[in-house]
């Protein structure tokens, strides 16, 4: 079994339901994100269009984060998920340096690495990842890539020619696909990004006690 994700960017409307569901399910601390939806405006006014791209760990089959981790805190599960053992992590941040997708962060509360695990704990109980459940338009398609009759395999077959992964040149073999994406959505260097014009960029870590 090789679990994978596919996001149909034609369907995504940028509601951020997946982002919030992930935050709640995994208790992701303020200022850090396992999954987020990036908004990019394309074109020049008045001919502009807004695109939405959910970004999460790709659970690469050839994962640089797993390779560089000195203590195997990042490890493969049998279903292909790249999981993290936060008790074993020493917080060296090697994985942060290695992941070409910026999918890993150091959790400010536990001081260990963290990232999307495809909700491995839910999958172990035969539930879907929380972001899949939350998406109102079913833009997130999740399933077994080894099974040709799974929804995700059929979706990939039906959209041959329009299925892409992020940064294929890195040789990471991502288990996360996009349909309907372009360079702008999948290549971070294809859009300009001015600090100071983003929401959330002034957020700092709240004190653990909860008072200011």
């Amino acid at each position, binding site marked *: 079994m090789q679990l994978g994700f596919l996001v149909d960017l034609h369907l995504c409307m940028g509601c951020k339901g997946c982002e919030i569901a992930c935050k709640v399910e995994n208790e992701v601390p303020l200022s850090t994100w396992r999954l987020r939806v990036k908004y990019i405006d394309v074109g020049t006014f008045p001919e502009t269009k807004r695109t939405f791209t959910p970004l999460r760990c790709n659970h690469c089959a050839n994962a640089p984060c797993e390779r*560089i981790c000195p203590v195997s805190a990042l490890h493969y599960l049998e279903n292909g998920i790249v999981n993290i053992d936060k008790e074993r992590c020493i917080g060296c941040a*090697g994985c942060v340096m290695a992941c070409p997708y910026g999918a890993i962060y150091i959790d400010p509360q536990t*001081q260990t690495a963290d990232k999307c695990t495809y909700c491995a704990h839910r999958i172990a109980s035969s539930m879907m990842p929380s972001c899949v459940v939350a998406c109102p338009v079913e833009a997130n398609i999740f399933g077994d890539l080894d099974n040709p009759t799974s929804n995700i395999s059929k979706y990939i077959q039906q959209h041959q020619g329009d299925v892409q992964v992020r940064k294929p040149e890195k040789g990471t073999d991502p288990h996360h696909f996009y349909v309907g994406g372009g360079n702008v959505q999948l290549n*971070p260097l*294809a859009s*300009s990004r001015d*600090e100071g014009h983003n929401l959330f960029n002034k*957020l700092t870590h709240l004190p653990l006690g909860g008072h200011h």
Partner: protein
Amino acid sequence: MAHEMIAATNAIVVLDVALPGIVWGWIITMNMWAKSIGTGIVFLTFFLLKKYPEKTGFIRFPAVAISIVFIHIFLFFTVIDLHQMFRFWHIFFYPHLTSAITIGAWMATGFVGLLLAMAYAIYMQKDEALYDKYLGWTVLLAIPVTLYTAGLMAESTARELWQMPTESAQMILAALLAGSATMILLGGNKFDNAVKKDLGLVLGLSAFAAFILYMSEYIFGAMKAEEVAATLAFIKGGEYTILFWIGQMMAFIIPMVLVCMSITKERYYLLKIAAVSALVGLWISKHVWLVIPQLLNMS
């Protein structure tokens, strides 16, 4: 970069999380810098004891003492950079052998053991032959200890600027530069002119070779990948430009000029200025090269 080319593809991120900050900062710079001195002085001790056994015997103890001090500075900064430093022992009990960090930690541990054996041989036993025997093994182990950081940078798939084999060459050159500079300061006027000249040559040539590598990447790196071009933009008019050139001047250009002047005019006191400049400049150069790829947004 497509967003800058035509109006129709002008693309601007309007809502996203903040750019990530620098994760490996000055503590890792200290780590690399101290390690260069700690292993470099071993290379130079081996060279001098082989070439000038009669004239340089007095360096045995101070050289190993300096190496022990700087390798422990390197280990100290390695450990304090961990977000969970009290779990450092996991590297030895749950080792993952594909990781350069694991290999480096093991090699460095063996290296420290040999350095301590050398110190014991020369300080407690006063046994130069035993010291020299250990030295051969220590030099061998100093090579992977010097190189493992380059392996780590190569494994950092997200940082396109850090290429192999360039980083390996830079690590060895940094060790030779730092080792010769430290030896020049250590030996002072106790070395005769032939030894000083050789140390000056090692310093000057390693500075020259490292400078060529930096300039090659500076000029041609951007032609291979847009990520490298975007990274190099931080030192081509970007916020790290001045610091980059201060580093290049102090680490490589000034030492090269001073070494030439000292050798051609036999003014060997200039070597000490070159050595101090090289050591300070090496820290700055390493720091800039460490930090700039981390300023790039990866998603």
